[in-house]
């Protein structure tokens, strides 16, 4: 048998249970071993960057917030920071503190979510159930503080929209205590559970050199010993006023990435406590102009998944000239192929999951439009179904020919 015949091509995606979002990994398998991986991104391109140019700054805050469901406040903060820099707004300290508190709560929610997903990807659903149960605490807290569990709608240009009341503070501290204890348990579990360690350790290796040259960011980079964290290196919001440790690890594998995220959870609890303790008095917004003076700014933000970069160019009107978003996952996908080299198929889901991919963020940039007629249009379910069948028929696939047993018809 020639070598070529031993290779089996497996399509992981665009639709696959391991991926929560559509992206395609074409995997060449040699037995259970991965021979090569080809990535195809872009299934989630929604035209958000273009959309931003056509909306006002006020509307854009909510649009960029919806780039991603998990790190929504990351994107909106990164965006408003850029606009505030252009408009030279002095954001009140209290607003910066509140932003930072919600940012860290978001990190907690994201990392706990990730822990569960990681558990699920290696078939450890019990871990998924427990960590997602605990994540509810922080979700409810976010709902209390901001008015929703996701897409918090917290930021506005020039500050935040909602204050933290004195009654809410004990609740924040209570949730931090509960979660800190739970996180300690997960750290202990991560160091003890044999089957979990066996599935995580040594899997998805990414050396420090590769992490640097492929531009990895966030926990993915830090688990390969790259000591970078925008919160410390280019402080924004209130990060200059709190003390925290940048968690790094030199396992350079999925296990290291797990430990880094668990470590960051512990840091996040301490950051939130410091911020709540020192929450300054004062207003929460300054008046922002409708028309932003011409100028440009780059804003960097350490999202739970890594560094988020927003570039905004203003042209003096109430709409931006250009908004550019670089989500952390786009930087990290470059290293996935490297991590998968010589790995097992069984490890593929966890290796992909370990960068905590968010392909919606990555692709950003649909209103449903009927491109043939050029008008926005809404289809009913029946129309959509008929449309789908016609679409396939035009391409020579006729569902009436599909063999179905029993009396069922296509």
């Amino acid at each position, binding site marked *: 048998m020639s070598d070529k015949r031993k290779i089996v091509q497996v399509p992981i995606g665009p639709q*696959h249970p391991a991926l929560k979002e559509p992206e395609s990994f074409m995997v060449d398998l040699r037995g259970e071993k991965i021979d090569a991986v080809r990535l195809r991104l872009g299934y989630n391109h929604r035209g958000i960057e273009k959309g931003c140019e056509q909306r006002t700054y006020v509307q854009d805050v909510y649009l960029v917030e919806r780039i991603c469901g998990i790190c929504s406040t990351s994107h909106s903060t990164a965006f408003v920071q850029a606009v505030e820099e252009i408009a030279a707004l002095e954001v009140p300290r209290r607003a910066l503190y509140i932003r930072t508190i919600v940012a860290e709560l978001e990190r907690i929610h994201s990392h706990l979510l990730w822990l569960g997903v990681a558990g699920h990807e290696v078939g*450890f659903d019990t871990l998924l*159930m427990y960590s997602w149960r605990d994540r509810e605490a922080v979700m409810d807290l976010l709902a209390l503080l901001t008015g929703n569990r996701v897409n918090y709608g917290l930021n506005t240009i020039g500050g935040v929209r909602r204050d933290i009341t004195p009654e809410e503070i004990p609740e924040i501290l209570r949730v931090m205590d509960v979660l800190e204890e739970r996180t300690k348990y997960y750290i202990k579990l991560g160091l003890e*559970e044999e089957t979990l360690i066996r599935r995580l350790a040594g899997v998805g290796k990414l050396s420090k050199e590769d992490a640097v040259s492929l531009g990895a960011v966030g926990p993915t980079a830090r688990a390969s010993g790259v000591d970078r964290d925008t919160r410390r290196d280019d402080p924004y919001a209130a990060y200059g006023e709190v003390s925290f440790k940048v968690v790094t690890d030199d396992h350079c594998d999925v296990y290291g990435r797990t430990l880094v995220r668990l470590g960051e959870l512990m840091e996040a609890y301490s950051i939130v406590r410091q911020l709540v303790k020192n929450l300054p008095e004062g207003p929460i917004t300054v008046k922002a102009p409708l028309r932003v003076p011409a100028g440009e700014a780059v804003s960097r933000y350490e999202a739970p998944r890594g560094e988020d970069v927003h570039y905004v160019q203003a042209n003096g009107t109430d709409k931006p000239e250009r908004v550019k978003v670089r989500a952390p996952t786009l930087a990290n996908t470059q290293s996935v192929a490297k991590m998968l080299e010589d790995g097992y*198929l069984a490890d593929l889901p966890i290796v992909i999951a370990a960068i905590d991919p968010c392909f919606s963020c990555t692709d950003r940039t649909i209103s449903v439009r009927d491109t043939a007629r050029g008008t926005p249009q809404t289809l009913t379910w029946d129309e959509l179904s008929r449309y789908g069948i016609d679409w396939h028929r035009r391409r020579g696939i006729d569902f009436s020919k*599909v063999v179905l047993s029993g009396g069922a018809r296509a």
Partner: protein
Amino acid sequence: MTAATALFQVLVFPGLVFLLGIGLAGEFVDRKLYARLQNRVGPPWFQPLADVLKLLGKEKVVPEEADRRIFTLAPIVALAAVAASFLYIPMWGPKPVLSFEGDLVVVLYLLLIPSLTFFLGGWYSRSIFSTLGAVRAITQVFAYEVPLLLALLAPALLAGTWSIAGMAAYYAAHPGYFLVNVPGLLVALVALLGKLERVPFDIPEAETEIVAGSFTEYSGRYLAFFRLAIDCEAIVCASLLAAVFLPFGLGLGPWIGFVLYLAKVLAIVAVLALLRTLFARLRLDQMVDFCFRVIAPIAFLQVVLNLVLKEFV
């Protein structure tokens, strides 16, 4: 035994219908316990039945590329083999429906058939995920069958009989020897996780890797039969372990015996549920490694121990 009673015994009680009933009950116990161990509520008692009924009513699609005959026969053969093997296992009385010297070997072979149908059904589905699942399933068979066979061989050697009823009778007469076979029981439980394709050995149907493995293309009635076969297989295997390793109370009359039998089987089902809650899924290479390096040697030592013991009794 008249033809009518034989037919009743094979098809209804304690045959197929009864087996399906406790199979679904077993699935409920497994799922409920799994949920409660995870601090969830879990399904209501009728959920397994509702799932099966729903599947029976669903459209069944056979892929165009699949080998139609094998694809449709595989689930039925799986269920038939499991139901047939059930008849040889003594449950609450000392005597099963059918019994002869050497039926242990027949039962073990019959119980191998479902795993083979997973392979055949998956392989002839012709889809990439099914094929991968099929190959994984058959690889896994080679890994867990060795320790499982050795673990069941050991008590048979000590009892000096190849009939399950004979073994049950022997251990009922000598209850002390139960303790000798405890390592074998543990090995058999772990191997069962492999046979039933459960975490940590659910490699052939690992959702996040290969969708549903062999079952990816299955739907409707065929999938329902496969699921029933797996539910029943769990019960048959648990009954087999109960008969071989836990032969208590066989002479206490039908009623107490029946309750005791259910308790034993459900206890084994519960232990299996606990085990699948505890671990992360292993990789195929790790699983094979574990079976051959850890549990097969333990099973082998059990065989040696029982052989030596046999010489001294």
